[in-house]
Each structure stands twice: as structure tokens, then as C-alpha cells.
């Protein structure tokens, strides 16, 4: 039973869950709990909010499982729900508050990364540790405009194609492509600036 469930596709599992199989949902949740949480966490950057959004996303999946029409893949459908949940959150939450959170987080990250970088610079071998580079990258992601950040995260976390990302974000393929390109450029520039490298 367990083996057959793990072998099943996402679409078959959601169909089974709609038909009453609780194990199917468990298997599906096991597959996607980390990516969806990751996506929510990177968008809001606070664990409490990420928990809330993650729970909202999955409750919506539970409620609308019977409405899944298999017109797109389950993954696309799931990330679409996550995207809509985030959009609702942005709309509901006070813009100022959200901006404050972002600015605070960014400042903290900046401070930490700067400190880390300066510490790193003082090291005799002058080598950057992976951890510090990752922190710098995360700071750069935080500073990205929301649309670019979303496209970048979807590209990195979900493994969706550009076409599917365009479907999830309800934007055109071309704008999705250009958002991803701009996000990459900005992150490159960000890293270069903080590492003192000229591109």
C-alpha cells in the first residue's frame, strides 16, 4: 500500500485524496512540505509568518482538492495557490508594516554580512566561507523587488519551467523571463559590490 502510494504521481495522489484516501494526502504533503515552506519563508523571512502562510496554503489545497481538474500539473496548481495566498497576505497586511519587516531584516542581514565579511577579510588566507557567501546572497534576494524575488525563488525552489512560473504568477512568459534575468543581474551586482569585485 505504502509502496504503491509513493510510486503514484502527484495528480493520482490528489485524486485519491479527493476520493477519501488520507494516506494519499500524507504522501503528497511529504513531497511538497519543504519546498512550499521554503517558498513562504523566503518571501516573508519570518518563521511565524512563514508558518501561517504555509498552513494557509495547505488548508486551501485540502479544501479545493476535489476541484483540481488536472488542466495543469499538481505542482503548478500548488504554487499557484501559494502565490495567491502570498498576494492575499500582501494585500491584507499593512504595506508599511511589511516594508518595516523587510527593512529590518535587510538591515540585520547587512550588518551581519558586513561583519562577517570584515571578519573574513581579516583572515590571513583571505578566503570567503560558503556560509558568508550564502548570507550575502540571501541579503541580495531580500532586496530584490517582489516580482523578481518571486520569480527567482520559484525558479530555484520549485523547479518549475519558465512557462509554468508565468502561469503561477499570472504574467506573460516574456515578463517572467526578463524578471528572472534582472534578478540574476542584481544578485551578481550585489555580491560583487559586497565582495569588492568589479564585474
Amino acid at each position: 500500500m505504502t509502496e504503491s502510494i509513493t510510486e503514484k504521481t502527484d495528480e493520482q495522489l490528489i485524486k485519491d485524496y479527493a476520493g477519501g484516501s488520507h494516506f494519499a494526502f500524507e504522501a503528497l504533503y511529504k513531497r511538497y512540505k519543504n519546498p512550499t515552506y521554503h517558498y513562504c519563508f523566503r518571501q516573508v523571512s519570518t518563521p511565524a509568518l512563514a508558518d501561517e502562510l504555509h498552513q494557509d496554503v495547505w488548508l486551501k489545497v485540502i479544501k479545493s482538492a476535489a476541484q483540481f481538474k488536472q488542466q495543469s500539473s499538481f505542482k503548478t496548481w500548488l504554487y499557484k495557490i501559494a502565490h495567491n495566498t502570498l498576494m492575499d497576505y500582501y494585500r491584507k497586511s499593512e504595506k508599511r508594516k511589511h516594508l518595516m519587516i523587510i527593512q529590518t531584516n535587510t538591515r540585520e542581514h547587512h550588518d551581519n554580512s558586513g561583519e562577517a565579511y570584515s571578519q573574513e577579510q581579516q583572515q590571513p588566507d583571505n578566503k570567503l566561507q560558503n556560509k558568508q557567501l550564502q548570507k550575502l546572497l540571501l541579503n541580495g534576494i531580500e532586496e530584490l523587488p517582489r516580482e523578481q524575488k518571486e520569480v527567482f525563488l520559484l525558479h530555484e525552489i520549485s523547479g518549475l519551467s519558465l512557462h509554468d512560473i508565468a502561469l503561477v504568477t499570472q504574467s506573460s512568459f516574456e515578463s517572467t523571463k526578463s524578471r528572472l534575468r534582472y534578478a540574476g543581474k542584481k544578485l551578481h551586482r550585489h555580491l560583487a559590490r559586497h565582495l569588492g569585485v568589479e564585474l
Partner: protein
Amino acid sequence: MSKHTKHPSGAALEKHLKDDTFISEVYQDIPCPEPSPHLNQAIITAAGKHNRTSLWWRQPSSWAATIVIFSLVGMLTYHTLEQEKDTASSMEPVYSPSPVTAVLSDNKSDNLSDKSSKQPVSQAKVEADTKPYVISVQEKTQHLSQPAPEPQAAEFRARSAFKAMHKNDTRQLNFARQPLASEESFAGETATEQTAPAFSPALSAEQLLKQIQLLIQSKDFKQAAVLLQQLQENYPQHPVDPIILKQLAPWQRTTKP
């Protein structure tokens, strides 16, 4: 996902920063945040709860829907059948075996038995012989069930029956199936059977002339001559087609008393 990959530094980093995959590689090495087990449990419990709830209401509702659909279909079928029955009963012609037709039938059979060589005729043979005439008479008289002057309709029916009888020697007619045969028509029928058809004097000259033409078409010159005689007697001023006069001249001579 390659965990904790050593990334280049210095000049090599500069080179790698120009590479598109570098950002992606760095990002993939970042440890993924994971939801807490408590959150996982809450979501899975919610899923199970929702499933049980939905299954609880889904089954009775599907039953209810099935029952409603079946009852609706049944009601519709019953209603349609009732309507069809009503329509059929309203469309069915009413055959009233009046005493006149009964007497006529008896008389007819007596006459026929007299005229024929007193041979018993089986019911099947009678029906087989008379079937085409019954159908033709029905067809001819069908339009008479529509609102029409009653004397004319009755006369036409009686006349049609007479013509059919006259054409065939067997003279087996289902008079019981003749609707609306009246006393007058019966009287006319019996009279014309022996001598010539007696028509109502209320007939106009045009009508008589039309009937004469019909009789000529059916080559019933004898009766046509009788009618022509009536026409000439009742309407002496009415012009008659010379062709008809010429056609019926020999018959008029024979029918004249």
C-alpha cells in the same frame, strides 16, 4: 542538491560571478528551512478531518440526489403517459352502432342472401372482401367528421357506401363501421339500391351537376342519368353541359318511365 560545495574566491570568484549558474549553485547550498513537526501534524490532522467531514455529507447527499433524480424522471414519465392517454382518447373517433345501422346491416344481409345463391359466407371471407371498401369508405368519410353540414355529410357517406357496394357483387359492407348514418340516408340507400338514388331536394343545381360529373367519371351512367333527370325537373332553367347531355342521352332514354 550539492550540500556545502566549496565556492571559489578571489579571481576565480570574479570569473564565476559572471556565470549564471553561480548564483543558483550558491542558493542551492543554502540549507532549506523546514516546517516544524507540530505544523506538519496540524496540517495532516486538518486534512483527515476535512476528508471525514466531506465523506460524511457526500454520501447522503449523493443518495438524496439520486432519489430526487429518479423521482423526477418517474413523475415526468407518468405525466407524459397520462398526457398521451388523454390525447389518444380525444383523437379516437366515436362509432355509435345506432339502431338504424343495425337494421340496415340486417336488411342488407337478408337482401344479399336472397340475391346470392343462398351460400353461407364465412366471416373471414366477408372481412377480406370488404376490407378495401371499408378502408376507402373510412378515408372518404374521414373529412366529414370535421364541421360540415350534417345532411351533406351523411348523404356523401351513404352514397360512397352505395357506390362501393354497387361496384362489387358481393356487396359485403361493414355498415356498423359507418359513422353517423342517419335515418334519411338509410332510406335513400335502400331506395337507390332497387331503383335509383333518391337525393335530397335541398341539393342545389350546382351540387347535383357536380355529382353527375362524379358519376360519369366513375362510369355510373345510369345513376347519372337519374340525377340529370332530377336536375332537369327541379331546375329546368339551369344550363347543363351539352357533353354531359350527349353522354347521358342513351341512359336517359332507358331510365325514363
